[in-house]
């Protein structure tokens, strides 16, 4: 029995040494031993092989869909004017009294039915559908029996993900978070000086690197010369809380957000001791004026870290960029846009907060293959003369969407929880009315 315990202790010690030697120390100083690169290469090969196998099986059976796209319908994007014009072609315009035909409803009907079958908004709040199966059961394609060999690989995958990767990643995440709390608290005790901010940055980045390794994150940064500089605001599209870990691997940001309770609260309180993050109480968040003023103060101090803001205000499934709330664009100062795109093949990074809690989401992440992410730093943008905050926000959004290969949507991400405002319907009605009575101006005079 004694021997068994001695053996177990010995194994545990080796395990910890390995973690410290192979992961912690490289993470501290920001170099890589090439282990994760090798892992990624093996993974790519395996998934490619699996896709090939599945495709072969599909062509033999010929029962499954041709998987070029996952769409259900091909939507028609004709404008109201064009569509109604075609509908009315068969009949002459009446000389007086407004242009209406019974077939006008066809336009609205078709648009309505199309939106029932496939719509722009609600689909952005559920996990992205994959074209091919990535050997994870939680994707759109459930486990399918294709061949014995593929099933074996799948089984091996489960073993590797749950029995080797998951414990390793959980250990790392725990070490990372504890380190963050201890490190930032300790740094917080120092008097304000250059050394303090330098140490604080070092602790932050180190902890995020450890956490990133805890998620097997493979991140590629593009155009680093455009990295956000001090005294600016960094805006990025939002997919999950992991976004923060991804971005902070390459430099520190001051974060803006609400004060949370629980584990998040502990981390937040520790972090604010060493570095001026901007946390708001829930009641303060409602006071937009106060929020803007505190952010303005932060930005005007050129020694403070750039603020990181996700102006969508909610997590989107990484296929599109939704409306940017104008608040962050009213602060002034330089905006540094950042586009982030995750590779869904290796794991779905989207946090569906109405379906999963934070912890279960993190566990799902830690049992996925890996997190592969591309980050593009875009050139700094400034508000132009004669441009209001909304227009500026839209311009930044388009730039991010274009760079990340995401769909640029006008819709508000807040629709995940709230109902659409009536003014949008009124706008549609107005547009139609102007087609019925001609010009807007004549609608009241007649």
């Amino acid at each position, binding site marked *: 029995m004694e021997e068994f315990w001695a053996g177990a202790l010995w194994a545990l010690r080796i395990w910890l040494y390995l973690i410290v030697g192979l992961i912690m120390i490289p993470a501290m100083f920001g170099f890589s031993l090439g282990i994760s690169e090798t892992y990624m290469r093996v993974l790519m090969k395996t998934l490619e092989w699996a896709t090939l196998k599945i495709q072969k099986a599909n062509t033999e059976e010929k029962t499954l*869909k041709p998987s070029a796209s996952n769409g*259900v319908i091909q939507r028609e994007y004709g404008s109201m004017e064009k569509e109604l014009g075609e509908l009315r072609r068969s009949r002459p315009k009446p000389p007086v009294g*407004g242009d209406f035909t*019974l077939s006008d409803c066809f336009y609205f009907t078709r648009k309505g039915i199309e939106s*029932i079958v496939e719509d722009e908004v*609600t689909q952005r709040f559920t996990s992205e559908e994959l074209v091919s199966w990535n050997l994870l059961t939680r994707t759109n394609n459930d486990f399918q029996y294709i061949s014995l060999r593929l099933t074996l690989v799948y089984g091996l995958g489960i073993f590797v993900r749950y029995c080797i990767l998951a414990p390793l990643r959980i250990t790392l995440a725990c070490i990372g978070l504890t380190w963050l709390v201890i490190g930032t608290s300790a740094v917080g005790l120092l008097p304000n000086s250059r050394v303090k901010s330098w140490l604080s940055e070092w602790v932050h980045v180190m902890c995020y690197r450890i956490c990133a390794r805890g998620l097997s994150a493979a991140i590629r940064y593009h155009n680093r010369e455009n990295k956000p500089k001090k005294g600016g605001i960094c805006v990025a599209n939002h997919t999950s809380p992991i976004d923060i870990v991804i971005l902070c691997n390459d430099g520190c940001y001051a974060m803006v957000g609400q004060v949370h309770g629980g584990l998040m609260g502990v981390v937040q309180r520790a972090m604010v001791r060493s570095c001026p993050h901007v946390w708001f109480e829930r009641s303060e968040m409602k006071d937009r004026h106060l929020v803007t003023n505190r952010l303005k103060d932060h930005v005007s101090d050129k020694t403070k870290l750039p603020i990181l803001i996700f102006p969508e205000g909610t997590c989107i499934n990484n296929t599109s960029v939704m409306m940017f709330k104008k608040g962050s664009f009213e602060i002034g100062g330089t905006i540094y846009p950042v586009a982030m795109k995750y590779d869904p093949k290796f794991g779905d990074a989207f946090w569906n907060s109405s379906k999963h809690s934070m912890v279960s989401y993190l566990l799902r992440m830690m049992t996925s293959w890996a997190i592969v992410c591309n980050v593009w730093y875009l050139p700094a943008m400034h508000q132009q003369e004669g441009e209001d905050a909304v227009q500026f926000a839209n311009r930044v959004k388009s730039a991010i969407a274009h760079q990340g290969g995401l769909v640029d949507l006008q819709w508000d991400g807040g629709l995940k929880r709230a*109902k*659409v405002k009536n003014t949008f319907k*009124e706008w549609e009605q107005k547009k139609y009315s102007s087609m019925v009575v001609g010009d807007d101006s004549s609608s009241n005079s*007649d």
Partner: protein
Amino acid sequence: MGSRASTLLREEEIEEIKKETGFSHSQITRLYSRFTSLDKGENGTLSREDFQRIPELAINPLGDRIINAFFPESEDQVNFRGFMRTLAHFRPIEDNEKNKNPTAGEPLNSRTNKLLFAFRLYDLDRDDKISRDELLQVLRMMVGVNISDEQLGSIADRTIQEADTNGDNSISFNEFIKVLEKVDVEQKMSIRFLH
């Protein structure tokens, strides 16, 4: 977690829906996965609220009338079968369906059925007639507050006058068909479903 849409739909059900609506196997499974994602109550049926949660439909001036078409007997739930039956009206008419055996019964996506769908949008009280009052109400939904009562009234009057052949001051389904006979209903009331 792993239980996905396609596994919950039984093969026999798919076959029956296929026969009734003319949708293909893969179209049915994909629409089923859409159906389940709209079904927030997760009880296998959709309510009016489930439809209203689609923002693009909520801003559609005729959104409420379109939603109503899914609830023909004024129930408050629609199951997948009923959902598909309504959607089937919008399948394009394929060439091989045009010269099909006429004894086989009218397919849901025929020109007449497409027109009937549109007719029912106007026929609020389902008495198979569009009265002036009904037409006014639907017009009001479409234009909102932007057009005066007077002007809308004259539009309604003229529309009924043009269509009404038997002088009862309302539009019957036959009159509706007649007045729209030159319109390309087959194309305008169809959606391009992918295979």
